[in-house]
């Protein structure tokens, strides 16, 4: 099995003393799904954002798809990585001035220099995969949150990425819209897409993930397969966190 | 590598920019030596030998150009300050009626604003001067050749036309600023003071306006700056402000470049004066809000 992401001792400090990332090491192999969990401010978003160069780090080594990046943050290498890695954001971040289809074809046409027609065809295929092809001519503000997020996934897929990063993709959605996005992600996992997902959705983590990584104050506390993590977590802090999550969900 | 690239880019742009400026200045010196004028400011202290109809300080045509320019600056200041006060008063009044409940008054002020804002200021100034003050001179106001007398002070028709034109023009813009500010106060505040039994006018002045001020002050500042810049249209009605005097001097001496620089500096000074005063007022307001 080929490793897609190898991180070694990644460290990043925001202000003095406060560490966003503290000696984080991990490996994600091809076709695997890694779920990253942790309380807010634990550095999980920062971690996932370093993988496509949206965040820099101070120490350590990162190898994404065979491209090595260090703390000097070489723009060209980052650019190479970004062309092969897709990202989905919490707030969707669709481009409001472009139609749904234009949102999807922008990068293939401008970055990969594909022909417009070809990109549109593939874009329509992706939209139908996500079940939002009827909205192709509309603008983002005319869509619901769940639809926007599925468009955002299609946009990330348009570059035919070898790795998909999800940064809390369902946190900004209404509860009844969460399922449609999770289902779309589930289908992607079944098709063998390598994914790193920051989420609080326990159900998704249990069913889909191969590994669960638990972070707190910038440190990796525990990495286990989901069946072990959710039934019998090794670490005290992970158990406490899971308890809180359980309480939260049983309340709501 | 990235940093090198940045420095290189900046360096390149600088070379092009300063190269261009160098060429232009070279052309300028060639042209100036050709006309035999050169570039200096020593002429400033020669007698101006033109008369000024309006001078707040004593001035005769044997005074220096520099003194004439200073008088011009004072004239500018005089008309700016007085139109500023009049325009603020008018604008506030119209802004209130526009935001107020009486839709008939609102309609009138909306009409006023559209007519004033959709026609050029220069046209309005000429209208006030030629129609309002020269045309009606003999039949309505009985204005003497000197102008209108107000409790011992004599105002020339040029000054009054400029004052009226600038104030009315600016008031239409100030009215919109005031209206925007009033509308920026949440609807609930109106309901709150009404439910407390305050009268409409009292509530507007004591509840709404203080909350609207932070939104109003920046807009007001930019309108005051516009007013100052627009006051240079004084030349169209023959009022001797700083621009008009510079223009006269250029016609007399041909010192276009020097006069342009003087004009630039005078306006930068005026701008500084207005922005600093407004900033001071803004700070006063913020302070009074903190302690209230």
């Amino acid at each position, binding site marked *: 099995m080929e490793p897609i992401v190898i991180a070694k001792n990644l460290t990043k400090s925001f202000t003095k003393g406060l560490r966003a990332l503290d000696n984080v090491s991990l490996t994600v192999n091809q076709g695997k799904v890694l779920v990253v969990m942790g309380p807010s401010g634990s550095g999980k978003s920062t971690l996932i954002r370093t993988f496509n160069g949206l965040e820099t780090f101070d120490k350590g080594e990162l190898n994404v798809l065979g491209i090595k990046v260090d703390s000097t943050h070489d723009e060209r290498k980052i650019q190479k990585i970004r062309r092969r890695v897709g990202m989905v954001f919490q707030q969707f971040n669709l481009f*409001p001035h472009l139609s749904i289809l234009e949102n999807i074809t922008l990068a293939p046409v401008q970055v990969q220099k594909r022909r417009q027609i070809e990109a549109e065809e593939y874009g329509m295929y992706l939209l139908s995969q996500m079940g939002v092809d009827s909205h192709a001519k509309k603008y983002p503000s005319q869509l619901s949150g769940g639809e926007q997020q599925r468009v955002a996934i299609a946009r990330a897929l348009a570059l035919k990425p070898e790795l998909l990063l999800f940064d809390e993709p369902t946190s900004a959605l209404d509860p009844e819209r969460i399922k449609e996005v999770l289902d779309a992600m589930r289908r992607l996992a079944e098709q063998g897409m390598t994914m790193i997902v920051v989420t609080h959705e326990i159900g998704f983590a249990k069913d889909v993930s191969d590994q669960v990584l638990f972070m707190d104050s910038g440190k990796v506390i525990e990495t286990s397969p989901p069946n072990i993590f959710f039934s019998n977590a090794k670490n005290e802090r992970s158990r406490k966190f899971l308890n809180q999550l359980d309480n939260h969900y049983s309340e709501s | 590598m990235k940093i090198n690239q940045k420095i290189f880019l900046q360096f390149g742009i600088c070379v092009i920019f300063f190269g261009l400026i160098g060429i232009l200045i070279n052309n300028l010196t060639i042209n100036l030596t050709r006309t035999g004028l050169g570039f200096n400011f020593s002429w400033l202290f020669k007698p101006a030998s033109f008369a000024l109809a309006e001078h707040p300080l004593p001035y005769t045509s044997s005074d220096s150009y520099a003194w004439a320019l200073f008088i011009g600056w004072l004239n500018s200041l005089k008309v700016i300050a007085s139109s500023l006060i009049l325009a603020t008063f008018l604008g506030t009044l119209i802004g209130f009626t526009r935001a107020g409940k009486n839709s008939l008054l609102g309609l009138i002020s909306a009409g006023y604003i559209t007519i004033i804002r959709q*026609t050029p200021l220069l046209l309005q100034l000429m209208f006030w001067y030629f129609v309002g003050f020269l045309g009606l001179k003999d039949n309505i106001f009985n204005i003497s050749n000197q102008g209108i007398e107000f409790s011992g002070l004599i105002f020339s028709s040029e000054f009054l036309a400029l004052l009226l034109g600038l104030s009315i023009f600016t008031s239409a813009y100030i009215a919109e600023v005031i209206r925007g500010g009033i509308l920026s106060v949440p609807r609930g505040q109106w309901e709150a003071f009404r439910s407390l039994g305050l009268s409409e006018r009292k509530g507007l002045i004591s509840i709404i306006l203080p909350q609207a001020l932070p939104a109003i002050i920046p807009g007001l500042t930019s309108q005051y700056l516009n007013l100052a810049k627009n006051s240079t249209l004084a030349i169209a009605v023959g009022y001797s402000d700083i621009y008009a005097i510079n223009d006269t001097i250029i016609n007399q001496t041909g010192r276009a470049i020097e006069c342009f620089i003087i004009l630039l500096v005078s*306006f930068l000074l005026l701008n500084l004066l207005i922005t600093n005063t407004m900033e001071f007022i803004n700070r006063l307001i913020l302070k009074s809000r903190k302690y209230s």
Partner: protein
Amino acid sequence: MFKININSIIFIFKNLKKTFFSNLFNTIITLLIILFISAACFNTFAWLMFKANWKVVLSNLPLYAFGSFPPNEQWRPATWIITLLILSIFTLCGPEWKWLRKNLLKAWVGTIPLGIYLLYGGFGLSPIMSRHWGGLTLTILLTVCSSLLSLPFGILLALCRQSSLPLIQKLSSIYIDVMRAIPLIAVLFFGQLLIPLFLPLGIEIDRVWRAVFAFTLFVSAYIAEDIRGGLQSIPNTQVEAANSLGLNQYQVIQFILIPQALRIALPALTNQSIGLFQNTSLMAILGLVELLGVGRSILANPEFIGQYIEVYVWLACVYWIVCTIMAVLARHLEQRMTINKANF
């Protein structure tokens, strides 16, 4: 149907009563206002119909429209103005034909070379010097050329001011701030009298184009600030999203930042061009015979001396109408843009 109408009329009437005649004070004010309005209307009407002498306007219509353009060539500027009018109507009505709707922007841009060609002549038309250009034609030409030139220049300035390169950022900041501090007439003065001093011997730029250049220098500083406001209100997440799709810095500026900033700044930008249209009248002081300049030269004619009110009222009407057309077009454009409104 009929019943509903009566009900709504009663409702409106009651509302009117409530706002205007709720108490004695309000009633008096309302009556006074109505009196004032009717008096003003009556007087204006009486003056317009009986007192005013419209010969000064009617006998000089071609002069107002085209300046001293040779009479047998006046169809050229007339064609241009009519083209602009037709295009405005098309834009407002929203044409049915899809190809026209798509090419509307190109058509608008195309009117500029068309106008310049029709005015200058050449290629089959007899050439006409720019000193014969005048009236409304010249006013519109100045407005259209200057606003179109100052847009790209303004965008460039705004981007430079936002740039991370300190030197470029400083230079453009100084330019913008100084330009915004000085009065327009000084810049126009610079264009008319000082630009020739900066040019080498033998090279001369036409007066009209010097005016366009000066207007561009001035307006682009204001446009730059409007666009900068737009740029600043775009959330950084948009840039992040574009970056994570692999778009480079220039592509982000071209496809994400500028289109969004332009949309946000659109109302301010249209206000700038309406202001520019009014400000072209300043050229009347600096020796171009545009619309206001024509008015001044007509008033200097002994035949029409002293007829200030008629000329100024007429000019005010023309300016008002063109400004209103521009404002309506701008409103229309804004509404079409807000259909696909930003969802930040």
